[in-house]
């Protein structure tokens, strides 16, 4: 995405691969102390970006062109203006090893509780991507979220007896590659990348659904005026047709620019939602709800899993 921008403008783009959770406090400290932030554009999860917006460290992107033409999912929910712009959505799919499921893809997330999968189930180590689904798998409904998460905690307590592994994106790939797990909740990008690298992994959207979320771009306050202008130009390019087509195809994720064709291997894949029907199978929790409740959910998740 950045190479064509460089070709177009002559501005070299240097990529900083600091983990999203770790760059966040550095930017916050710089803005609070009146220093120039360490980066110009932050590629972030929408939840993290929303937290930064709530802290008031993001520049309003409302003056970008074509925002009104993007799909509704591009617009941040529950925030004033455009402190960030979502650039694509992604699904926390149920990834599995076909060899462990000879009868076909798992139909329900509850298979994670089966004794034969003891020690062979993996989740993110902060419960991200699974908390709302745990509520549904535990017998609750979407309406229970966020006020009644008890069915989810009950599901986690049952799952804990099955000794799940808790990790992060690279762990899932390694564990699948080593044949150490049979099923995991992970983003579809990981599962697809693993499959493209020859690892025997498939993914599905079980009957309870999967959580759908977004990533976005935002610009920190405190940049010199000219640098902020070019940072905005990069974001402007990122939400344009050309960048969205190439960038999202490479990631294998649905873009926010309307009318773009999915990559051939993802046509009709429920983990690549493009139609309202697809989104009905998925669970989307507005970022402000996530931001407000994540610390509590996180604490309860840890409490159960660290037992």
């Amino acid at each position: 995405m950045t190479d064509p921008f460089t070709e177009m403008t002559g501005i070299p783009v240097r990529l900083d691969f600091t983990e999203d959770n770790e760059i966040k406090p550095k930017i916050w400290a710089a803005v609070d102390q009146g220093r120039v932030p360490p980066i110009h554009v932050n590629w972030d999860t929408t939840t993290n970006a929303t937290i930064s917006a709530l802290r008031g460290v993001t520049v309003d992107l409302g003056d970008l062109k074509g925002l009104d033409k993007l799909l509704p999912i591009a617009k941040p929910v529950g925030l004033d203006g455009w402190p960030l712009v979502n650039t694509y959505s992604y699904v926390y799919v149920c990834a599995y090893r076909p060899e462990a499921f000879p009868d076909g893809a798992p139909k329900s997330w509850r298979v994670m509780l089966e004794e034969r999968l003891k020690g062979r189930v993996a989740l993110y180590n902060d419960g991200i991507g699974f908390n709302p689904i745990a509520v549904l798998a535990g017998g609750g409904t979407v309406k229970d979220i966020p006020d009644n998460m008890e069915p989810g905690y009950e599901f986690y307590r049952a799952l804990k007896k099955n000794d799940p592994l808790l990790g992060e994106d690279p762990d899932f790939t390694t564990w699948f590659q080593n044949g150490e797990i049979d099923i995991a909740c992970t983003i579809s990008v990981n599962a697809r990348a693993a499959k493209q690298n020859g690892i025997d992994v498939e993914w599905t959207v079980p009957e309870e659904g999967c959580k759908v979320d977004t990533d976005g771009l935002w610009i920190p306050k405190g940049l010199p005026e000219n640098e902020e202008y070019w940072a905005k130009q990069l974001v402007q390019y990122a939400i344009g047709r050309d960048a969205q087509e190439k960038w999202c195809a490479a990631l294998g994720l649905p873009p926010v620019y309307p009318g773009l064709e999915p990559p051939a291997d993802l046509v009709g894949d429920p983990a690549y939602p493009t139609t309202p029907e697809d989104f009905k199978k998925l669970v989307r929790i507005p970022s402000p709800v996530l931001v407000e409740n994540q610390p509590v959910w996180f604490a309860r998740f840890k409490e159960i899993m660290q037992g």
Partner: protein
Amino acid sequence: MADTTSGRKPVSWRMLDAVDRLVAAAWPRGAHGMNGYLFILPAVALVFILIVGLGYMADYSLHELDLATYRLKDEYSLANYAAFFERPVYLRILGRSLLAAVIVTAVSIVLAFPYAYLMVRTQSAAIRKFLLIALFLPFFIGQVVRAYGWLIILGKEGFINSMATALGLPPLDLIYNYPAVIFGLVQYMLPFAVLLLTPALAAIGEEVELASESLGANWVRTFRHVLIPMATPGLVGASVVVFTLTLTDFAMPQILGGGTSDFIANAIYDSYFRISNLGLGSALSIILVVIGSALVALIFMIAGTGTLGISGRNK
């Protein structure tokens, strides 16, 4: 030899003269009695920075996170400390960290002692070289790399389980649990323990042991009444270092624990970075510092700092 008679001193000498003149200007002759203290200034400055940082953390720890703005509230409160005591998960994680620190310290010392003893007593240069290489080699391999190495060896599809399967045995759960974390930490801490024990053992003259034996003590009595007491400085030093490093370890629980055997350092990381709660992270850090310092102080109270050669008495 440099020619000093012609009046042309070497450049290095002239530079040192310049430094002398500079020091004389900045540090009057009357203050020369304080020269020794001048050298500890950089260390004092580093400690001062640490104390300032701790002060900031103590202040942050007394402010609760406002979820509407994700900033700490202005009002002072003990909410973060209350959260630590009210949420069982934190006490469980702290207990797990402390237990690991005790186990790892004990096991490391038990394993390090014979290693260090053999290294200082062996008559064979080859054996000594081998032990030295084996001791220092792990220092060149980072903790994370070593942890991943254990994953390869102990993993469900790892070397040991492959062997077990080949022999018709059922696969073993050797990884992603608390014992795996303890195992990894012992392997990581062992060289530190050996390194700190070795000088203490080397300082015990071989003739002292011979004297003990010539007076009728068997090997066990010599070990108990001569070696152990005389090796106390090394034992105390090794215990303090291994205990504190284990108590504050992050990588081994993270990698070998499979996400279910967190230590307090992992909880601190989560608070700072995952849930952006600077106040809670600071409170956990302060609690860790206080408990760690108190336990080290306890060790020194029991063993005495004099055992490390820090007695405060003029010799």
